[in-house]
């Protein structure tokens, strides 16, 4: 078998958490764009993802990629009830900050900052980490809940649910925060272990 790892070279690795756009370079060979099967293309959901090394690498197993992506999209993009979009993105950014996924944190910090119109608060999370005071109890409760779920052994309990309730989140919103933080424990592990971030040229 001709299977080997890739060693990206000639790029600059980001050494801080940032809201800047980053690239991602794979450590394993993605499926070549021209070699994607019909099923693999279908599993990308968005045709534009055929340009992404990350998604073409995951397309090696199309069934789990498609299921992963459909789970992701509903948790973060479905506008029906639940937590505000910005708060779901905050849970994703906080989870990524604690796990140490600079790439994932950059994407979801951008989204949280844009949807929440709170650039300075998001930057405090990136700069100081999960103990940063984000200025209100709602966002502090979301970050604390995300961190407790991300810790292993898992530290999330009824007290986190109660704190979210007191901060104004209803049952559907609390489910969104749980789903968003849990999902990024999935996404972070893929992005961290199958490749590395790079500063865009």
């Amino acid at each position, binding site marked *: 078998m001709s299977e080997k790892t890739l060693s990206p070279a000639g790029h600059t690795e980001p050494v801080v958490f940032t809201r800047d756009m980053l690239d991602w370079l794979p450590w394993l060979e993605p499926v070549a764009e021209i070699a994607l099967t019909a099923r693999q293309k279908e599993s990308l959901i968005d045709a534009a993802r055929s340009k992404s090394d990350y998604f073409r690498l995951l397309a090696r197993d199309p069934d789990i990629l498609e299921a992963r992506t459909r789970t992701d999209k509903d948790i973060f993009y479905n506008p029906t009830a639940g937590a505000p979009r910005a708060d779901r993105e905050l849970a994703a950014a906080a989870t990524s900050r604690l796990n140490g996924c600079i790439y994932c944190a950059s994407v979801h910090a951008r989204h949280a900052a844009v949807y929440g119109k709170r650039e300075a608060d998001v930057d405090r999370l990136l700069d100081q980490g999960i103990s940063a005071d984000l200025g209100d109890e709602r966002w502090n409760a979301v970050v604390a809940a995300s961190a407790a779920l991300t810790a292993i052994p898992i530290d999330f309990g009824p007290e986190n649910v109660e704190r979210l309730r007191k901060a104004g989140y209803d049952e559907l919103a609390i489910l969104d925060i749980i789903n968003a933080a849990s999902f990024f424990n999935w996404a972070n592990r893929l992005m*961290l272990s199958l490749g590395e971030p790079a500063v865009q040229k």
Partner: protein
Amino acid sequence: MTDVINELAGIAAGSPLDKARDNRAEAKKHAQTSYDSLFSAKDFGAFPAQERWAVAAFVAALHGRPETVDYYAVKLKDAGGSPELQVALQSEAVTAHAHGPYGHYPSGPLSRENSEGLKYAVTISARHALGRRLTAAFEHVHMLVYHPRDARPDTLKAMLDAGWSTTDVVTLSQLVSFLAFQIRVVAGLIAMQGNTK
């Protein structure tokens, strides 16, 4: 229809919490589709079912949540996992126990946040029961579960060197990462019911 997350979290179909989950019906459905694609695939390829359940049982054991530890331990047994493999897995999970997430950042301002933790290697006595492929897989799983930011190309090379194909490394990475999601959703849903465990 089977919903493994509900089953693990003790949620009855049609109960108020089950209905609340339906507000994200696609996410609920595809969490289950994800599980099915990893564990009930039509074609397991070169990553057979018993290996999948062994990896899952180890991931669950490292997370230490009783509801999921027991579930995947039984699945491994039902898939024909040998008593030697089951015993080795349980004793390795004790040896491998840690508190995370920890690990290293690229050199720079974040270096001050580097935190040290166990760098696990399968014990000599367990290597025979696990075999070459699962020995490499368990070491990779430990990194993914507790200190994923320590991943490097060399951690993947160790998998390829042990006979895993690139595609099967992708599937294994998805399996471990999916379980990191599933186990946390279940923990969250249990907490929503007012319970600690």
